[in-house]
């Protein structure tokens, strides 16, 4: 390997990339457990497909747009790395192979759109969702990653290199970005049938807890791995990640106990995720004691913010706005207060004598990413809605989206299960299964509409 290479750092970043990859299935379970049983698979599929689509686009042009040398005022990379074609196996980015760096960054690009899906649970056409992902990562995530993550001695992304906004692992680029896009889509698609009326209990809280456990685990790769080296900075990021998450879990639980009278497990899982989101931008800049504070703030604030959807009347089904937009923004802004100057940046926050300077920069980052994300997501969503249609029919929604969109049932626990279905065929049917529910009964041709 060329000089400057570090085996320890490479090991760390490669394993971190694997950890971040696992977060997308983790998210699938976190979300999938929270929906009703009739749309569990759709929820899982919306996350998994992000692994498929974004990875391919990343190779084709995503990496180049996000991390190619800046081509226009810190807004976008150039096209020198299309297809990852001219990258040598041993070419370095810092102390690690470019391929390792590229894979680590890819995993961020994968999970970001997957996060959005929680806002439109139970009601989005799967093909429309796939199209949305492809467009959204291309025109939103890849450029925004360039703004926020691509440093090049002052000539990199405009937020990080021109403005000086700090975002260590993606509070703005990932979480705020996804959260706001979720808000836009929730508005474009409208509310679920029965919103605020029908109870919509999570169908499997153990699945939610599994998801939160895997997210927490993978998040060490996300945050500590963002040091891109196995060093003291990674150690600090790791520590703050753990501490803020724990403290946000405690914060959320206390809020819930006071407001609703019970410590719920969903609250524990949600609080942990709120903490993970909040510490993401800040983990390299603040102290462990600062992380306890940040965690408490995020836990309580997000626990409160998720009730906004009922008050304001938008159906952000799984609280992507309340957790990711709010948590990401709060975490990014708190850097402006809590940055010690002794971590990954010399900038000091208000509480450490740095004045309002950093806070202002942070606000610019939050504002810019939020606004851009909202507008673009709204446009893409609306165009899809108007052209191919984004939302399934009411019948499909009531019967369950899994049946119509995926021709599957999530579970069959019945000892009697096999007995409950009949005909078996291995050849293509004349009508596609997705429309089978619409076939009318042979002996009642007049009755052409079949309800769920």
């Amino acid at each position, binding site marked *: 390997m060329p000089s400057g290479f570090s085996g320890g750092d490479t090991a760390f970043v490669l394993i971190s990339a694997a950890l971040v990859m696992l977060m997308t299935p983790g998210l699938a379970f976190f979300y999938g457990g929270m929906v009703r049983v009739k749309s569990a698979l759709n929820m899982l599929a919306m996350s998994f497909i992000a692994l498929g689509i974004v990875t391919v686009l990343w190779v084709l042009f995503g990496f180049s747009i996000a991390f190619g040398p800046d081509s226009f005022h810190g807004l976008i990379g150039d096209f020198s790395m299309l297809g990852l074609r001219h990258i040598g196996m041993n070419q370095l980015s810092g102390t690690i192979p470019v391929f390792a760096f590229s894979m680590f960054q890819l995993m961020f690009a994968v999970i970001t759109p997957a996060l959005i899906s929680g806002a439109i649970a139970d009601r989005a056409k799967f093909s429309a969702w796939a199209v949305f992902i492809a467009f959204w990562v291309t025109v939103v995530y890849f450029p925004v990653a360039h703004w926020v993550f691509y440093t090049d001695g002052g000539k990199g992304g405009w937020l990080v290199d021109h403005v000086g906004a700090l975002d260590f692992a993606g509070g703005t680029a990932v979480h705020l970005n996804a959260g706001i896009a979720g808000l836009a889509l929730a508005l474009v698609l409208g509310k679920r049938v029965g919103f605020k009326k029908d109870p919509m209990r999570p169908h499997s809280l153990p699945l939610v807890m599994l998801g939160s456990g895997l997210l927490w685990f993978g998040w060490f790769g996300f945050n500590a791995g963002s040091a891109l080296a196995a060093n003291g900075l990674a150690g600090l990021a790791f520590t703050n990640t753990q501490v803020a998450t724990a403290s946000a879990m405690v914060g959320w639980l206390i809020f819930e106990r006071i407001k609703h009278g019970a410590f719920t497990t969903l609250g524990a899982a949600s609080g942990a995720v709120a903490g993970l989101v909040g510490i993401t931008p800040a983990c390299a800049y603040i102290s462990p004691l600062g992380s306890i504070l940040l965690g408490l703030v995020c836990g309580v604030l997000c626990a409160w913010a998720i009730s906004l959807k009922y008050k304001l009347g938008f159906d952000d089904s799984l609280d992507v706005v309340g957790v990711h937009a709010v948590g990401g923004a709060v975490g990014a802004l708190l850097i402006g207060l809590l940055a010690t100057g002794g971590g990954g940046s010399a900038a000091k926050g208000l509480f450490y004598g740095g004045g309002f300077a950093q806070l202002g920069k942070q606000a610019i980052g939050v504002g810019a990413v939020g606004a851009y994300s909202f507008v673009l997501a709204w446009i893409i969503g609306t165009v899809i809605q108007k052209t191919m249609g984004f939302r399934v029919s009411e019948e499909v929604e009531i019967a369950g989206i899994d049946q*119509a969109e995926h021709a*599957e*049932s999530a579970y069959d626990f019945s000892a009697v299960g096999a007995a409950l*279905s*009949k005909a078996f065929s*291995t050849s293509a049917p004349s009508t596609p*299964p997705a429309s*089978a529910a619409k076939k009318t*009964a042979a002996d009642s041709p007049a009755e052409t*509409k079949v309800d769920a």
Partner: protein
Amino acid sequence: MPEMKIITAVIKPHRLDDVKEALQSFGVHGLTVTEASGYGRQRGHTEVYRGAEYTVDLVPKVRIEVLAEDDDADSVIEVIVKSARTGKIGDGKVWSVPVETAVRVRTGERGPDAL
């Protein structure tokens, strides 16, 4: 002792809530629910697992039982039929059967007092 009826209804699951409320307003304060699957005119759907296609021809239903006094039975049936109706195939059936004895376990009361 006046006679009683046991009224059984097989309906669409998402109508349960309305049926329950309608019965409640009518003055019926108890019922027993079981999950069921129905086979009838309403078609099921097709599922695909690794290229194998299965026709699921039983559709989820909810089965309700209501014990009612003889005099109320017809009205109860009426209430259920009205509140369960969507007008589309698969709305289900309601039937009633005369009951010989009905007892409340807690008190041993019999007949209408058992309700």
